[in-house]
């Protein structure tokens, strides 16, 4: 007697979604955080919009795609904590001693993270619009932007899960995430257009997945969409997400070997 992979994936996803809904603090923070960012960054960096060579209509409309991707990064950093809780409580051991597919355990949690990512992304777009941002790309542009955020989330949440399963320590996970997330934010085009960045930052930003995802969202939501940018950056994100997701599956095996 064994459940199909689809059933197992569905059950594992449901479990995590139910858990997330029952932790109102986590959801509250997930919504409040982008509001704070849009208000803070939108006001502090407002004058950037007047700098010659900025190249966009207004700073807020430029900023929303960046905030969308930053939200993914900052929420995704916590993605692995659920595994650490499970290891500590004994849920993980019970799962691993039962006929449940290991990929279903890892991917079910990832699907939950991606669902949260979409909900958060929609909130960011709504909050941005309320604050006065214009989305020239229309509904299609917003959908493409959300798609890019999901690809970025798949890569980054898998990274968090892999680190969690290898380090098995909450403090280490949060520490590593913090070290990665802040530089990743500033070495990207999330807050500043590339032509205004110092040369070395612009160079580093080219290799930053946050820049790739932001570029997709920025062009998709602009009046004239560069589909070439959308296609290439999406491809890069797909490759990255696949590699990191595969690594997170390996990390689950490595955890079991350590038992």
């Amino acid at each position, binding site marked *: *007697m*064994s*459940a199909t992979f689809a*059933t*197992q994936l569905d*059950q*594992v996803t*449901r*479990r995590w979604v*139910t*858990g997330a809904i*029952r*932790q109102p603090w986590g959801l509250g923070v997930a919504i409040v955080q982008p509001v704070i960012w849009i208000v803070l960054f939108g006001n502090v960096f407002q004058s950037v919009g007047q700098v010659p060579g900025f190249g966009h209509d207004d700073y807020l409309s430029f900023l929303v795609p960046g905030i969308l991707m930053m939200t993914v990064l900052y929420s995704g950093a916590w993605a692995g904590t659920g595994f650490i809780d499970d290891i*500590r*409580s*004994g*849920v993980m*051991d*019970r*799962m*691993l*001693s*039962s*006929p*449940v597919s290991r990929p279903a355990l890892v991917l079910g949690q990832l699907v939950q993270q991606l669902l949260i990512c979409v909900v958060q992304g929609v909130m960011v777009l709504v909050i941005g619009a309320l604050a006065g941002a214009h989305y020239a790309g229309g509904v299609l542009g917003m959908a493409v932007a959300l798609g890019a955020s999901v690809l970025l989330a798949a890569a980054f949440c898998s990274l968090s899960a892999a680190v969690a399963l290898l380090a098995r320590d909450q403090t280490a996970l949060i520490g590593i995430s913090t070290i990665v997330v802040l530089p990743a934010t500033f070495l990207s085009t999330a807050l500043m257009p590339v032509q205004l960045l110092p040369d070395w930052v612009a160079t580093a930003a080219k290799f930053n997945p946050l820049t790739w995802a932001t570029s997709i969202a920025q062009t998709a939501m602009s009046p004239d969409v560069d589909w070439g940018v959308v296609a290439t950056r999406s491809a890069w994100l797909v490759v990255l997400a696949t590699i990191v997701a595969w690594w997170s599956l390996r990390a689950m095996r490595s955890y*079991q*070997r350590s*038992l």
Partner: protein
Amino acid sequence: MPSTPAIEADDLVKTYPGGRGRPDVRALDGLTLTVPAGTVHGLLGPNGAGKSTTTKVLTTLSTPTSGTARVAGHDVAREAGEVRRRIGYVSQGTGADPLLTPRENLVMTGRLRGLGRSAAADRATALVDRFGLTELADRGTAKLSGGTRRKLDVALGLVGSPQVLFLDEPTTGLDPEARAAMWDEIRRLSGEDALTVLLTTHYLEEADRLADGLSIVDRGRVVAAGTPDELKATLAGDTLTVDLVEPDADVVRAVAAAVPGLGEVLVHVEGPAGRLVARTPDGPLLVGPTIAALQAAGVRHGAVAVSRPTLDDVYLRHAGRSWTSADTSSTGVAR
């Protein structure tokens, strides 16, 4: 013809890397174990003896460094999937998701094990009723008391209708009332369900009351095996215990050796306190001569006790050290 044993472990060795140049930790050192189907078998030993590691190997969680094991007729290394379908595992931690209700935990477990929607719901209801959780089934799992939560853990282990159930320290941390309730449940498991149960415990009393068969584990090996009565019967006669004050171990040994009828003398000294433990065919008769000899040699003593053999004595004899000195964190040991 005897049926196939539910558990057969042969010469299991498990080493963990010591890290930073320290030698490897040998958690299992040639452990061999046979458990007949339909019995409750106790794995008794102090913390760190290798009980949990044995359970992890037998539940396919952990891969042995060497040796083989078969559970419910399948090899744990080569046929892990087959073993997992036939076992339930209640770990030392909990196994329940605190954010789901008890019923949701049970249903999810059933679905993951291949039960359909309604079959999983029925199974959950049956287990909820059986463990007396009906009123609490739809409340938060995190709010359950320790004893109730442990019942839920056992129920979760039973969702897949296993042939073999592993209970790792099922009553550690429970108050006496909850412990007694858990003991009743474990007895019912073997009685009504004809289930094989492997129970690890460091409570001598628990092993004595519940287990049909016992394996005493020390330093990764089984040092003695049999029914509790068989094990106690290997120790004929009584145990004589004398508490000592600032004793000189060599003097005490010499004194005891000179008392006719005292055998298997062990002297423990810990700080200013000491203890003389000896086996004797007739305890009450030897109290007088022993005390007189100690006094003559100038050894100060405290309480004197004569007792029938307990599992503690069995442990002492086979592991070569007393229960309490091997397991300082153990609190439930009554002497």
